[in-house]
C-alpha cells in the first residue's frame, strides 16, 4: 500500500474544515464544563445539606459512567421524553456535563488548597461569603487548578471523536466518511492523528507557560 500524496492534498481542505468543527465542539463543550464545574463545586459547599448530597452523588455518577453512554443517552433517550436535540446540541451537553463533573473536582482541589487562615482573615475584615470567594478564594484556587484544567482541555479535545457516533461532522466523522467512500483508510486516519497532535502538543505547552505566568502575576 502506497501513500497517495495527491489525494492527501485533495482531502486537506475538507479535513481542515472538520478540524474547525472539532475545535468548536471542544471549545463549546469546555466552556460549558468550566462554568458548570464551578456551579457543581459551589453547590457542594453550600450549608444546605440535601443539595450538597444530591450534587455530590450526581458528580460521582457522571464520573463513573462512560462518556459514550452519556452521549447516547442525551441523543437517543431524550427524544423518548419529548426532548429533541440536534446532534451538536446533544454532543455539547453530554461532553460539557461529563467534563464539568471532572472540572468540579479540579476546582475542589484548588479551593481546598487555600489555607483556612484566608477564610478567617476574610471574616476579620467582615467580607461576605460571595466576596470571599470572588476576591480571595477563587483567585488563589486558580493557579493550582490550571494544570488540571489544562489536562482536561486536551482531554475534551481528544474525546470529541465520541460525538461522531451521533453524527457530529468533526474530524473522526469525516475520516470515517472518506474511508467508507474510498475504501482507503491510511491517509484519512493518519491525517486525523497528525491534526490532533498538531493541536494537542502546542496547547499543552501553552498551558504550562500560562500557569507559570499566572503564578508570577499573583506574586506566588
Amino acid at each position, binding site marked *: 500500500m502506497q501513500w497517495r500524496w495527491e489525494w492527501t492534498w485533495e482531502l486537506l481542505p475538507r479535513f481542515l474544515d472538520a478540524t474547525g468543527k472539532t475545535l468548536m465542539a471542544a471549545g463549546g463543550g469546555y466552556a460549558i464544563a468550566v462554568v458548570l464545574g464551578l456551579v457543581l463545586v459551589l453547590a457542594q459547599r453550600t450549608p444546605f445539606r440535601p443539595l450538597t448530597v444530591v450534587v455530590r452523588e450526581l458528580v460521582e455518577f457522571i464520573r463513573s459512567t462512560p462518556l459514550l453512554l452519556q452521549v447516547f443517552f442525551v441523543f437517543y433517550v431524550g427524544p423518548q421524553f419529548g426532548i429533541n436535540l440536534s446532534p451538536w446540541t446533544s454532543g455539547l451537553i453530554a461532553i460539557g456535563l461529563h467534563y464539568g463533573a471532572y472540572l468540579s473536582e479540579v476546582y475542589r482541589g484548588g479551593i481546598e488548597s487555600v489555607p483556612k487562615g484566608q477564610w478567617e482573615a476574610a*471574616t476579620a475584615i467582615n467580607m461576605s461569603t460571595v466576596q470571599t470567594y470572588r476576591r480571595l478564594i477563587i483567585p488563589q484556587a486558580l493557579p493550582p487548578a490550571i494544570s488540571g484544567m489544562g489536562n482536561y482541555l486536551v482531554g475534551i479535545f481528544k474525546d470529541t471523536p465520541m460525538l461522531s457516533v451521533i453524527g457530529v461532522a468533526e474530524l473522526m466523522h469525516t475520516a470515517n466518511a472518506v474511508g467508507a467512500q474510498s475504501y482507503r483508510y491510511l491517509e484519512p486516519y493518519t491525517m486525523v492523528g497528525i491534526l490532533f497532535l498538531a493541536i494537542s502538543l502546542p496547547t499543552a505547552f501553552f498551558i504550562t507557560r500560562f500557569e507559570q505566568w499566572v503564578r508570577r502575576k499573583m506574586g506566588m
Partner: protein
Amino acid sequence: MTEDMSQYPLQLEGDNIPMVRFQNVRKSYGALTVLDNLNLDIDMGEMVTIIGPSGSGKTTVLRMLMTLETINGGVIYVDGEPLTHMEKNGVLVPASPAHIRRIRSKIGMCFQHFNLFPHMTALQNCIEGPVQVLGMPRKKAEARSLELLDMVGMADKRDQYPSRLSGGQQQRVAIARALAMRPKVMLFDEVTSALDPEVIGEVTNVIRKLVDAHSLTMLMVTHQMGFAKDISDRVCFFFNGAIEEQAAPSELFENPQRERTQQFLNAVLEAN
C-alpha cells in the same frame, strides 16, 4: 439543654457600658468543654491581655469574639449590642448572618500566622476591606491605607507581595490591614509567636504605638510576659477554660494570689 434567654438584656444600658461583655459564655467541642461560663467585661479603651497555659481556652475567647467560633451558651455583647444574638419578639435568639456582619464590623483581628492575602501587595491587602466591604472610593482607601502603612513603618514596601516580606513585616502589614477597617475593638492572637526573636520588637512597638495613640479597645493573647506587663491595663490568667485570676499587671505579676498563677509564672520565668 435550652437556656433561659430572658435573663439576658436585649441591649446593655447605663452610663458605663463595657465595650465587650462575655456573659455566661460556654464553648465545647462535643463532650470537651473548652470554656465554662465565661464572664468578662472589657471597658472602652482598655487593653486586656490573656495569658495561660496552652489548651486553657485563651485563643478561643478571641475567636468567639471574631465569630470564627460559634458559642454553645451565653451571650457576647459588643458596644452594648448583642453580637451572637438578636432581638426577636422581646427575647434574644441566635443572630442572623446580616446581624452578625453589622456588629462584627466593630471588631478587627490579627493572627499568629498573619494570614495576608498572598495574591495582593501590601497596599492591596489594606484597601481590600475598605473598598469591597465598606464601599470606600479606591483613592480615599489608598490614601488612608498609606497613612497606616506609614504608621507601621511599611510605606516603602507598599507594592511588595507578602512572599517577599519577612514575618515581622507581614505582621505589621496585617495590623495596618485590620486598622484600615476602623474597628473599635482589636484582637491580637499570639501575633509574635511565629516570629523570629529579633523581629518581635518591631511588632510589639507598633502595638505600643496603638496603645498610646488610639482609643482602641484591645484584647490580646500573648506569651510575651514582659510585653504584657508593660502595656496592659489588666491581665487575665486562664486555666482550664476559666479565668483563674485577673488583676492589674503589676499585681498579677508581682503578687499573684492563686497557686496556679504562681506555678505558671514560675514555669514561664524559668523557661526564659
